[in-house]
């Protein structure tokens, strides 16, 4: 016996969405006898149906929206900047600003080229007591302990700078607690967390100050995924680097 394709489609769909009538049930039984794949297909369709039914909404109207020209402009600027950086490492360029995010632009800030670690000095020692005093109510703990302050060791910092860094694992991400001395006043420093595959998660910025500064920054990456904390200057250099041990190591 063969079942016309249209009939098979209807039988499979009706079986998947539970709308089989008695006649169709008998037809499906007959189909099973000659097509052992039909039950697997019904199961697949049923699970797909159940997944789709979990969706709260789909707005077809927004499929007709046109992105702002600033989106294309921003993408082009970012691509051009990256192309330039690859072609001419070390040459300064204009700053990159995402469209519509004027608040992210900073006057006088130069774009960043050729991330380099030149000039860093190994420290291997930190004054964790300073960070400790910043968060006296926070217990210390092993790497990855939720809500606990983890001591870190900065392996490299720029000459003349002194940095203390603590790390706190949260359910929502990773917090870094900083005491920084020797940052150039008014200069922007970006904090970036690297994961073990080289992925990057931004964690905000701070401006250098004449006096020692303290700040706390958040990043949407779990501590267990963080391999390294970097401070990057607007000149594109790694200003400080703190490798973190694996959680549970």
């Amino acid at each position, binding site marked *: 016996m063969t079942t016309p394709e249209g009939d098979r489609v*209807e039988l499979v769909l009706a079986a998947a969405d539970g709308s089989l009538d008695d006649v169709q049930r008998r037809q499906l039984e007959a189909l099973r006898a000659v097509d052992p794949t039909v039950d697997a297909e019904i199961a697949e369709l049923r699970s797909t149906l159940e997944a789709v039914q979990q969706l709260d909404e789909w707005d077809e109207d*927004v499929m007709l929206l046109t992105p702002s020209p600033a*989106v294309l402009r921003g993408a082009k600027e*970012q691509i051009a900047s*990256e192309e330039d950086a690859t072609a001419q490492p070390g040459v300064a360029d204009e700053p990159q600003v995402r469209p519509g995010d004027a608040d992210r632009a900073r006057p006088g800030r130069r774009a*960043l080229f050729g991330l380099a670690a030149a000039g860093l000095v190994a420290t291997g020692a930190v004054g964790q007591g300073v960070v400790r005093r910043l968060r006296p109510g926070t217990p210390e703990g092993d790497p990855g302990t939720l*809500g606990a302050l983890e001591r870190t060791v900065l392996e490299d910092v720029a000459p003349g700078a002194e940095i203390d860094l603590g790390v706190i694992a949260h359910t929502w*991400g990773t917090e870094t607690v900083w005491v920084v001395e020797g940052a150039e006043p008014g200069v922007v420093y970006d904090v970036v967390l690297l994961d073990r595959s*080289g992925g990057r998660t931004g964690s905000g910025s701070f401006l250098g100050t004449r006096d020692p500064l303290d700040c706390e920054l958040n990043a949407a990456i779990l501590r267990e995924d963080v391999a390294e904390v970097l401070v990057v200057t607007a000149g594109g250099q790694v200003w400080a680097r703190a490798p973190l041990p694996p959680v549970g190591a």
Partner: protein
Amino acid sequence: MTTVGLAVLDRAAPREARPLSRRDFDVARAFDEHGSLLLGLAVNALGDRHAAEDCVQETLVRAWRARDTFRADRGSERTWLIAIARRVIIDSARARSRRPVEVRAVPPEPAPQPGVDGQVADRVTLLAGLARLSPEHRQVVVEVQVRGMSYDELSRRTGVGVGTLRSRMYYALRALRGILTEEADHDDA
């Protein structure tokens, strides 16, 4: 900070250094041809036009970076861009779901709820799958399965016969099934 800081690392990371002679990716053409689709998907997923536009921009930039990976014999540029957008949107949705709050937890916070990230990814993957369907196939899935409309009602509204609508539903679900499997395989790879 995030864009600039990450751009620094993107440009500097040796593993991402690539020659300029690779396959060209015309970002303007991709924007013109697929921008609305990508934006619509992102708005549906995030419910935030501004965040969605950020995702479209990020998708175009990531596509340019990954232009060597595009294989026309494996699928259309549209499908490739949706796959990239899916990952961008998942990242964005996860970041939004973990938006930092003032927490000074002593004793330590409760452990993270397992599976939340997976739920976010599953939802975005489903939406990306819907975006890849034709408008006609998407319509029948959305109206009947998401909004609960009957085939008879949809037939009255559209003038399309119930049999045709049910056939569209079957093929739409088959296509969705294939897309979800494909994405799951990709995530596992």
